[in-house]
């Protein structure tokens, strides 16, 4: 009694939830957007990049207003050993012109702005509110349909349809019976620090003009023996440094994530990039990396799942895919409203949209490399070692004929492990490292 009713209740004001809230409110549906944090983004550890193209599909020209850090013009991949790094990279100055390519961002600043766009369109944002369960209505003798959510204060909010954009925990998704348990081998755990440094220092260290940013992904040394990645990128007045890998390997190898980060920061090539920078934030979160097999059932009567809760992550892409899944969910819900039918019959259109998307093709494809790393967890380490040893030799000035030198390098690389293995390591490595 006295409990509210909306067309749509959205659980979670992250990129998936706020996207759907914005688009549905623009379509004149009544929307409640529920967020457990003090503000949207309060619980979010992501830093990384906001990609221009997918984000502009939802808010055209968003970069003019959104709180973004820097325009990324440089992307590098470092294969790191203890005293060296083989670097591949690209700097494109065109990326600093409209319409840009991507931006560094801190989601605890970006998310409140993004959710506020939905509020301005008419969505009702409820912060410090935790949804703990779903409520159902009977629609026939044996069937029931989701009819709303129950909050931690006991209140119920009713809705024609509930969109779960609740993040990696996928708590209600599990309660709704849409997914099984999540294995540690399907999850990566990352820790991150933000280190304050004046903009001028950042720009001189990374060879940037004001407003330009740089992004470095790292393989090998940073994760010790765990399959995972390290990374470092520039914000406006801070540097973000991140490291992590598969949770089951962190466990079996006895690794402490905080110590991993400390060790990474002490690497001589990292130390000089972050010297004098003062830590201002320490954040951590799991990232679902289960791939195709771990994707839950995406819909049922009166309910849809989007974003991390739906395991919508491919390589480094998560935020933009979450937004796109929110977009598809909103399109489907608008159709359901037009048909006045919120059962699975209409909502299944959401699954079709997701399955036909470009990112689902990538998620499907990543299956092979995930399996390969399961069988060969040392692949990145061996490649990195070989590349650095070879580079040391190549760049060392000696007193031998260049043919002799090249032969030695070749023998060394191919002597480490069978050539075929090195090539397969490289093949899957390139697939897995992806775009940073």
């Amino acid at each position, binding site marked *: 009694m006295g409990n509210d009713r909306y067309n749509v209740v959205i659980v979670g004001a992250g990129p998936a939830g706020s996207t759907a809230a914005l688009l549905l409110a623009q379509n004149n549906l009544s929307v409640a957007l529920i967020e457990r944090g*003090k503000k949207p983004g309060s619980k979010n550890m992501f830093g990384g990049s906001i990609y221009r193209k997918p984000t502009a599909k939802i808010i055209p020209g968003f970069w003019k207003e959104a709180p973004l850090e820097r325009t990324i013009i440089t992307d590098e991949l470092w294969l790191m050993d203890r005293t060296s790094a083989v670097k591949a990279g690209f700097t494109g100055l065109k990326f600093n012109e409209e319409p840009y390519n991507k931006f560094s961002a801190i989601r605890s600043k970006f998310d409140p702005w993004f959710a506020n766009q939905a509020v301005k369109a008419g969505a009702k944002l409820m912060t*410090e509110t935790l949804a703990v369960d779903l409520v159902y209505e009977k629609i026939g003798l044996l069937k029931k349909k989701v009819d709303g959510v129950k909050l931690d204060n006991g209140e119920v909010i009713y809705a024609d349809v509930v969109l779960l954009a609740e993040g990696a925990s996928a708590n209600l998704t599990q309660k709704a019976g849409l997914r099984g348990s999540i294995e540690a081998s399907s999850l990566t*755990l990352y820790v991150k620090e933000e280190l304050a440094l004046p903009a001028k220092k950042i720009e001189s260290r990374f060879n940037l003009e004001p407003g330009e940013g740089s992004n470095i992904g790292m393989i090998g040394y940073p994760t010790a023996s765990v399959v995972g990645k390290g990374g470092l990128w520039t914000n406006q007045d801070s540097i973000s440094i991140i490291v992590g890998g598969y949770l089951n390997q962190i*466990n079996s190898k006895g690794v402490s994530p905080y110590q991993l980060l400390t060790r990474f920061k002490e690497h001589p090539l990292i130390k000089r990039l972050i010297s004098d920078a003062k830590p201002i934030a320490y954040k*951590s979160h799991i990232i679902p990396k289960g791939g195709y097999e771990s994707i839950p059932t995406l819909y049922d009567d009166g309910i849809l799942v989007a974003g991390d809760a739906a395991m919508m992550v491919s390589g480094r892409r998560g935020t933009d895919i979450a937004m796109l899944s929110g977009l598809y969910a909103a399109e489907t819900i608008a159709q359901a409203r037009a048909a006045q039918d919120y059962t699975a019959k209409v909502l299944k259109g959401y699954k079709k949209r997701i399955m036909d998307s470009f990112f689902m093709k990538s998620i499907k494809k990543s299956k092979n490399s995930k399996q390969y790393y399961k069988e060969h967890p040392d692949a990145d380490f061996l490649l990195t070692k070989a590349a650095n040893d070879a580079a040391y030799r190549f760049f060392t000035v000696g007193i031998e004929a260049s043919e002799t030198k090249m032969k030695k390098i070749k023998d060394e690389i191919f002597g480490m492990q069978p050539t075929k293995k090195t090539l397969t390591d490289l093949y899957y490595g390139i697939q897995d490292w992806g775009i940073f």
Partner: protein
Amino acid sequence: MSNFLKAEESPFDYIKIKPDDESHIDIKNRKTCLKACENKPCTYYCPTRVFAWDEESNQIKVSYTRCIECLACPYGCPHNNIEWHFPKGGYGVNYSDQEDLS
């Protein structure tokens, strides 16, 4: 390796947490930790060391007020022995308003 509990600089200097009155983390069966769990991985994979082995009482001590809600613990426990749920709305870690800390 540095133990950040003892180190001069602790990440807790720059983490903002509003702890709830009651714990949102529980060990389901304390005997399992003692008898079945050799390595006690929760004592190292947790990024803020919420879990510590208490030699005196022979059980895992849970410092839920250190939790930054990374969600690793329920999935990382090899015996599925950690009960974790979200802190109440508005409680727990808060990454926004970082400026309030300084």
